[in-house]
């Protein structure tokens, strides 16, 4: 009867009761020509309860993080209108500010609020959109991101991806022991939550297309297994645990299948696992390493990494199997692909001259270009609107996350105060709305 006590004690030691630290975002390369926009602090007067979030600040930060906008700093605002009638468009025009957002937050009950906002075209002097959004104390931050999505879409024509999440793995080292955490946070790094901790490695988180579940690899029990975990409830299931490698899970666009890497038949091969029937279908057959499958958005083909040609390169194969066609020819290391949401590009890890950087391959033209200039960049993952790619990189001796716009012009870094952070996966669009 000694063991349960020991086990409990060790678990408490390994699990500090602190909330995980938030990622902090720092813009490392700005863009010339980002559009000036003024987001005036929202009117919060006449409130029985203090709103828990600065909605205007969240919107301005979101727009700045996109790289497409240059919000006017709060202290440089020339006026603080809270109603349309108070706006003097001429004053904003002379500053070159093309768009203006105003709004107010009102209490509607205990813990419930209403956010009203309006977006104006300053040059034409007219309203572009205006909405009233019911919200709660706990949802306010999320609803602010949804408002950012609407503003971004109205001004750029592209759907916003601010009300999304990222999953990633953090590692803390204490002495010789490591603690691996699978975390989920809002796309701006706020509200981080640890959904799994282990003393053994956690790897390769992948979002289901509905954004409700994560597939990942865990080495608990000192072997690799693939799990699927419901992010909301925490309920999880071990779905694949063959001898050898169980790795690199990737959801099919319909959410019913996982492409995975298994070495059960002797060496790493790509398989498709159907969750409902628990059936496996083998896709590749080679004596080489085949791994890191990703689905094309139409669900018809897989792109994967293989060293069948002598060095790791990307190949494309129909989901039904058959001949794989090589996609990358530049240099001797191209791996870890992610499809752009429109299926036209692949983000990948390109190794050359002892450096590993993120590049973008145009699948139609075959044109390739580097987007990043790190030394150990890896794990690229597209935002669901295709505007940005989040990836892992090294800053000094620590692992941090970074994001680059898909045109390579805008860069930011997301880092923790302590510990390593790695393997980011950007969620699909949120479907809770």
């Amino acid at each position, binding site marked *: 009867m000694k063991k349960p006590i020991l086990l*409990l004690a*060790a678990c408490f030691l390994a699990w500090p009761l602190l909330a995980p630290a938030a990622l902090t975002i720092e813009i490392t390369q700005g863009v010339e020509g980002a559009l000036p926009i003024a987001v005036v602090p929202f009117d919060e007067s006449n409130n029985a309860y203090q709103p828990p979030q600065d909605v205007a600040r969240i919107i301005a930060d979101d727009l700045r993080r996109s790289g497409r906008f240059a919000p006017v700093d709060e202290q440089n605002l020339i006026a603080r209108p809270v109603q349309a009638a108070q706006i003097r468009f001429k004053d904003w025009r002379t500053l070159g500010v093309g768009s203006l957002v105003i709004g107010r937050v009102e209490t509607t009950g205990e813990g419930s609020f209403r956010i009203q906002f309006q977006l104006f075209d300053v040059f034409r002097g007219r309203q572009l959109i205006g909405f009233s959004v019911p919200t709660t104390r706990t949802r306010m931050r999320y609803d602010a991101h949804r408002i950012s999505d609407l503003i971004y879409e109205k001004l750029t024509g592209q759907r916003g991806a601010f009300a999304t999440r990222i999953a990633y793995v953090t590692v803390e080292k204490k002495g010789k022991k490591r603690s691996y955490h699978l975390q989920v946070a809002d796309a701006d790094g706020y509200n981080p939550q640890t*959904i799994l901790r282990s003393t053994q490695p956690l790897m390769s988180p992948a979002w289901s297309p509905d954004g409700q579940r994560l597939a990942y690899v865990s080495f608990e029990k000192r072997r690799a297994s693939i799990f699927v*975990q419901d992010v909301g409830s925490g*309920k999880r299931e071990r779905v694949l645990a063959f001898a050898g490698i169980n790795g690199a899970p990737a959801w099919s666009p319909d959410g019913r299948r996982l492409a995975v890497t298994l070495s059960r038949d002797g060496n*790493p091969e790509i398989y498709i696992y159907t969750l409902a029937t628990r059936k496996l279908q083998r896709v590749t057959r080679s004596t080489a390493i085949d791994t890191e499958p990703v689905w094309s958005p139409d669900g018809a083909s897989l792109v994967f990494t293989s060293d069948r040609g002598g060095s790791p390169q990307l190949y494309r194969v129909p989901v039904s199997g058959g001949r794989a066609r090589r996609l990358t020819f530049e240099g001797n290391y191209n*791996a*870890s692909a992610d499809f752009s949401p429109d299926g036209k590009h692949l983000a990948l890890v390109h190794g050359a001259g002892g450096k590993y950087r993120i590049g973008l391959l145009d699948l139609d033209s075959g044109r390739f270009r580097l987007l990043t200039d790190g030394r150990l960049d*890896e*794990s690229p993952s597209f935002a669901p609107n295709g505007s940005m790619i989040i990836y892992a990189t090294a800053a000094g001796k620590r692992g941090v996350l970074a994001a680059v716009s898909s045109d390579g012009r805008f860069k930011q870094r997301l880092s923790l105060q302590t510990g390593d952070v790695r393997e980011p996966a950007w969620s699909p669009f949120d479907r809770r709305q």
Partner: protein
Amino acid sequence: MNTVKLGLALMFAGVLAGCSTTGSKPGEVAVEDRGTTAGATEEVTTRAAGDYGELGMQALNDPSSPLSHRVIYFAFDSSEVAEQDRDLLAAHAAFLAANPDVKVSVEGHTDERGSREYNIALGERRAQAVKRILEFQGASPAQMTVVSYGEEKPAAEGHDESAWSLNRRVELVYVGR
């Protein structure tokens, strides 16, 4: 004494492994334990010392015995076992052949460069290469399990060749039955 130490080490490893699948705290997701780690680990722990026998354990821990060396290293992007490590593997193969109850986990690792899942595959290729040599020289396949940790468990923390060369490795980790 060494026997006890190994037993304790295994017990601690078992306890930590148990942690990863059990327990919860407020505001955190309770993790379902779908396996039997805790019970199974207890068995591993209590039998470990006995099964090796005094002679076997002494050989594993005697610094003058080749069996005390249980890590071999690899060149970049290579899974070729160096000529100088053949004698070491022959000694381990002979030990395994003479002690059919002893089991070993053949654990492959890589340096941090390149993608993580590709490194898992590369680490397995290294471990398989070592397993094949052990098997060829008399160890039974049933005594060996292969696991690859890729770049996830570096032996050295640095980000240069001096650390990388220590991380491209296969470890032989003896366990009880």
